[in-house]
């Protein structure tokens, strides 16, 4: 039997903080097993060595924020058999998508001494707005267990066992006491995609929605409850829904509904 060549893996970066790519390096225990199963061909965060494409699997971090990005992602798509986006920037535009609610030209001069050097798009957009994406892995940052699951599922040709239901289910599986019901702490868990294992409620904090909207998220009903009896003001509601996944459709619409 001739050994099959290992699939070629590439890791790409767009506008992002690198945290999700680091999750791959953070897979200490699994890292050797991963390198045993795939050839890491392009991963500037980890190594300068580079093997030319095409690639079997591309992991894409970050959002599209410049005209150059918007071109580059098409090249990457063309050289990738399977393309998976990792993290809130790549799947929803990230925290930098806050610009989408304003006119970016008005604050470039406030930040940069030479605004004329800055070439940027008015919106920060997810990869899926530009090219076809095979799978979107959520989270800010992604959960490394879920990342390994995606790689594993890819290697064995099965669907990743990543459930799109609420964070509440994970919170309850962990045996937590609901912080919203028992303490009146605002929590986005009921509208947020699972993946973190209910991390914040485990530490008596409300969920920040790092994994973005869950399937069929009823943000309107939750927001009504957060307003009364929990007591959040309209401004607070805008801010609550407007963080790492601000531009994910369900969260975007909900934050806009509370703006005057």
């Amino acid at each position: 039997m001739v050994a099959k060549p290992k699939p070629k893996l590439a890791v790409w970066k767009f506008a992002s903080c690198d945290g999700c790519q680091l999750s791959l390096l953070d897979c200490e225990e699994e890292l050797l097993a991963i390198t045993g199963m795939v050839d890491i061909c392009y991963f500037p965060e980890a190594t300068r060595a580079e093997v030319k494409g095409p690639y079997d699997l591309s992991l894409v971090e970050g959002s599209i924020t410049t005209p150059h990005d918007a071109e580059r992602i098409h090249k990457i798509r063309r050289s990738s058999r399977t393309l998976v986006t990792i993290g809130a920037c790549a799947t929803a535009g990230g925290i930098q998508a806050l610009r989408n609610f304003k006119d970016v030209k008005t604050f470039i001069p406030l930040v940069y001494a030479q605004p004329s050097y800055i070439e940027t798009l008015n919106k920060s957009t997810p990869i899926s707005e530009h090219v076809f994406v095979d799978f979107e892995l959520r989270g800010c940052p992604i959960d490394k267990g879920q990342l390994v699951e995606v790689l594993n599922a890819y290697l064995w040709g099965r669907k990743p066992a990543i459930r799109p239901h609420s964070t509440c289910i994970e919170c309850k599986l962990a045996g937590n006491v609901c912080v919203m019901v028992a303490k009146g702490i605002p929590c986005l868990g009921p509208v947020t995609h699972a993946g973190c294992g209910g991390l914040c409620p485990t530490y008596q904090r409300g969920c920040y929605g790092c994994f973005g909207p869950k399937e069929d998220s009823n943000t309107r009903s939750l927001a009504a409850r957060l307003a009364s009896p929990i007591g959040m003001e309209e401004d607070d509601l805008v801010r609550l829904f407007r963080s790492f996944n601000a531009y994910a459709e369900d969260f975007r619409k909900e934050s806009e509904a509370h703006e005057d």
Partner: protein
Amino acid sequence: MWTIQPRGLGDLLEALRNRGYRVVGPVVRDGAICYEDLGSIEDLALAWLDEQEPGNYRLTGSGNGDLFSYSPGAHTWKKFLHKPSVTLWRATKDQKGLHLKEEPTAEGKVALFGARPCELAAIAIQDRVFLEGPFVDSFYAAARKEMFVVALNCSHPSKSCFCVSMKTGPRAATGFDLCLTEIHPNGEAELVVEVGSETGGLILADLQRREATEKDLEAVRKTLEEAEQRVERSLDTEGIQGLFDRSFESPQWDDVARRCLGCANCTMVCPTCFCTTVVESSDLAGAEATRTRIWDSCFTKDFTYIHGGSVRPSGYSRYRQWITHKLANWIEQFGTSGCVGCGRCITWCPVGIDITAEVEALRARERTGSGSGGSSHEGNA
């Protein structure tokens, strides 16, 4: 019937531990009554008062000398019997082929300390589901086999409780080895103990006790009568299967779907909900695989995902499925309602959706003639 002093609770705990039981019971954690291991009697939640209402739970000191002035809290006993996550089997692959290895079901002996009457009714329902059908769940059976139950009758039902209309409380009739009722004959708390099994009798024999007097028994009757009167909430179960049959397209489902988050908290906290999914995982090299069973919920889309999509794609159809199964179809399937009136789904629903109010709303729509036809959905959608 016997009477013991509050310090007898510690002796009871020790007696159980000495006989090799892992004792679990109510403790206070993160602002709520939870069911966890009782390492010593200091862990047991005593003199706490809970306030419950739809979507709201608060725990404060009772300050009235009562030991058990709280009702069912954040957890259910099902976490010890029908566990949130169970490894079903593992498999390994080598040159010789695939080797399946079943996971052991062996359980130590567990004693539930302070199970409420509605909770005993819930365990009886899960017994029917897991033990009395054509397929016995070996994991549940193993956990259940040597279980010891110290029941605790309710003197302080919460505002979410509706055991009376579901005929499950506030007094336990069966399903326990020992059953306690807190009384205050002379201002001081005492506990009247009823023996429900031979093992229960043997364990009680180890404790300092006296025979219950007529006055003690009168206090028990009075306490539980008063408790019954304090159960404000109720669910009208009269002709309930017919109600759900007729309400299949009620506009009420649209109404509740606007409020329901589909978060599944209600099913997670329900002591009778039993649905699970199985998840397969393997190591990266493909040499080892594991099948795990975890709690699932009819409120997720994946729950009914078959080729081409989810059978119940809307919040409308998912809420309808849950309540119709729980209160009506369950009767056909298992000969009992799936609801014991513990009130958890009401308290722990983040937006306070109340199962009893939803039934009332369905009835009201029938009375006013707005019971069908006004729905925006067809059939199962």
